[in-house]
């Protein structure tokens, strides 16, 4: 049951995270006039979230298991710093019911849902049971862990192939297998079980019907501690690689008012049935006939929350904090209006030309985009060394405009302005996707990006490439001549060149 609390402003909030999201939360705290506390591992001593903090404490060595995942240390620091609330961000301990409980026991408010709601919705099989109770559509299949291959074969026969095996404790595509024929089920079942055991410490798997060419559509919900819950429209996250989101947008180009209302109301029913509070996201698959199926619920703030903020005009982190302080939601469903279109690119330190290998290291050059409709939630600076210990997200670039078409044009313009040097990034991949005719026509589903990448390197625009390559050759020659003619061989030529260049600039 909901426990009603009297609104009481927080004295201080500890931010149990790093990177762009730690900065994002610190900014919200500052805007609300609440002091915040940063924590860091040894690898993050000079990280942007520490430099921007008024108060910062060392957690421990670089591995996350010895720092950002140490709930005991976080609570110790909270008590030392006098923080009466903890914002977990996303990842790390954000969906850890045990940590949420430990916070409660220490008298520190966990800014998120109660542990009971996290438990009810955290396991995928339990969430499927909750979906049934809330009367929301889900993919056909089992709602409990499969006891044996025999049971798996029976369920698969009942729902029909192709089917999907998934880990109950799953996430990030681990323990997932698509199966098209009954002959393949036995080996896939065993492989999925052992992969799930290794990744999540639980070998529970279940079966569901595979939806062909689905779109990934998710609904943002917000619930206060007084029984009010509302939905803030949808986000489309169909552009994925290996089940990881790459580009998100809001609203979806294919969701109309009626479908939005039906999905939104279903999401609210699920949240309320589990006693959910604070921000959460209900994920669905949408098939080509506009049938939607419950996928899972994420019981935290999502990476892609900015696209919802831009089209609703709301600040989700402000609202998370106000809800956790016991305030009632300051708006009703009728007050939620969607306006314009927002697109987000997840900028990663990875090399699309080399199997998407991670590329940590020193950022030697950083030129960031700006101008109308551009927001960047970044966690980097020029001269910083991106550590190898954490996930490769550097920044989120978000474009907002009245229409989808203009938002895409804005994003392409901003990508042209953006330079990150010293490490490889996936910036070029976004140019390719946003320039693709299928993406522009919103002909996307969760297999779209894999199909695009399978086509091999982008072709077309040969003329402009030829042009750019000549310019690059000229620029390279100028840079190289400055370098190779340095002191020993011809000390005069460098300064002569610079002087001449300056004079040319002045005479224009």
């Amino acid at each position, binding site marked *: 049951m909901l426990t009603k609390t009297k609104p009481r402003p927080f004295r201080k909030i500890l931010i149990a995270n790093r990177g762009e999201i730690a900065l994002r939360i610190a900014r919200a705290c500052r805007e609300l006039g609440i002091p915040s506390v940063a924590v860091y591992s040894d690898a993050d001593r000079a990280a942007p979230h520490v430099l921007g903090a008024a108060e910062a404490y060392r957690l421990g060595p670089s591995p996350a298991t010895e720092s950002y995942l140490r709930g005991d240390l976080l609570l110790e620091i909270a008590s030392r710093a006098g923080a009466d609330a903890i914002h977990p961000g996303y990842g790390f301990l954000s969906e850890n019911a045990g940590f949420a409980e430990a916070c409660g026991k220490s008298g520190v408010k966990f800014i998120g849902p109660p542990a009971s709601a996290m438990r009810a919705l955290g396991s995928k099989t339990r969430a499927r049971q909750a979906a049934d109770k809330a009367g929301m559509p889900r993919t056909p299949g089992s709602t409990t862990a499969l006891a044996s291959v025999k049971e798996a074969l029976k369920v698969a026969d009942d729902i029909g192939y192709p089917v999907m095996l998934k880990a109950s404790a799953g996430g990030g595509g681990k323990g997932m297998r698509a199966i098209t024929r009954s002959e393949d089920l036995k080996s896939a079942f065993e492989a999925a079980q052992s992969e799930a055991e290794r990744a999540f410490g639980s070998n529970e798997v279940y079966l569901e019907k595979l939806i062909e060419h689905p779109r990934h559509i998710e609904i943002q919900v917000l619930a206060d501690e007084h029984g009010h819950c509302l939905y803030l429209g949808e986000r489309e996250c169909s552009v994925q690689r290996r089940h990881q989101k790459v580009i998100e947008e809001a609203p979806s180009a294919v969701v109309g008012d009626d479908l939005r209302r039906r999905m939104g109301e279903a999401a609210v029913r699920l949240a309320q049935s589990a006693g959910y509070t604070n921000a959460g996201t209900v994920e669905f698959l949408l098939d080509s006939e506009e049938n939607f199926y419950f996928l899972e619920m994420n019981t935290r703030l999502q990476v892609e929350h900015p696209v919802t903020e831009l089209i609703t005009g709301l600040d989700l982190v402000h609202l998370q904090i106000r809800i956790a302080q016991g305030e009632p939601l300051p708006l009703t469903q009728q007050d939620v209006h969607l306006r314009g279109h927002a697109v987000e690119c997840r900028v990663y330190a990875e090399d699309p030309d080399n199997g998407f290998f991670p590329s940590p*290291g020193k950022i030697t050059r950083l030129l960031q985009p700006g101008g109308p409709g551009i927001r960047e939630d970044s966690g980097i600076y020029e001269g910083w060394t991106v550590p190898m210990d954490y996930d490769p997200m550097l920044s989120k670039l978000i474009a907002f405009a009245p229409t989808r078409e203009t938002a895409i044009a804005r994003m392409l313009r901003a990508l042209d*302005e953006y330079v990150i040097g010293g490490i490889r990034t996936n910036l*070029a991949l976004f140019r390719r996707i946003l320039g693709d005719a299928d993406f522009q026509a919103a002909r996307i589903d969760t297999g779209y990006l894999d199909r695009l990448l399978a086509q091999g390197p982008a072709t077309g625009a040969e003329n402009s490439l030829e042009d750019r*390559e000549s310019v690059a*050759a000229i620029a390279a020659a100028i*840079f190289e001549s400055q370098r190779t003619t340095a002191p020993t061989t011809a000390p005069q030529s460098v300064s002569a060149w610079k002087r001449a260049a300056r004079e040319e600039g002045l005479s224009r």
Partner: protein
Amino acid sequence: MKLEIEIAGRIRTVEHTPGEPNVTVDGVPVAVEAQVLRPGLLSLVVAGRAWRVVLEEDANEPAIHLGGERIPYRVDDPRSLKARRARTTGADGPKAIKASMPGRVVRVLAQKGEAVKAHHGVVVIEAMKMQNELKSPKEGRVAELRVAPGDTVAAGDVLAVIE
């Protein structure tokens, strides 16, 4: 000064005199106005088109950032013997396995002296929760193994040599 710049597998010959407004690319003169804004940052006006050019220097290869695109290049001074020799080295000699990314060595799959087939995994490095298996470029024997599990490596570091 004459330089050979290799971009996207194609060699361009660029000739220019510092301070002169004309540059020739593969023998064709182009009107160029250049201004160095700060080290590694250049404003170029080429035949009326303005470009902001950023130089990226890297352990492996330098690159030019131009209008949102990253263009790696290789430079050869035609007078340089070393560059000539590097280009003509055949496939028969010893081959180094280099780290393609910075990371930590998690496993070594072949020991020193061991015979390996082409594409046989030799060293596994990990960064940002992803593992990358580095394979032998050819059939041969592990002549040198320069790393052990737990070591931190930089991009371009030689991990092993196969002969």
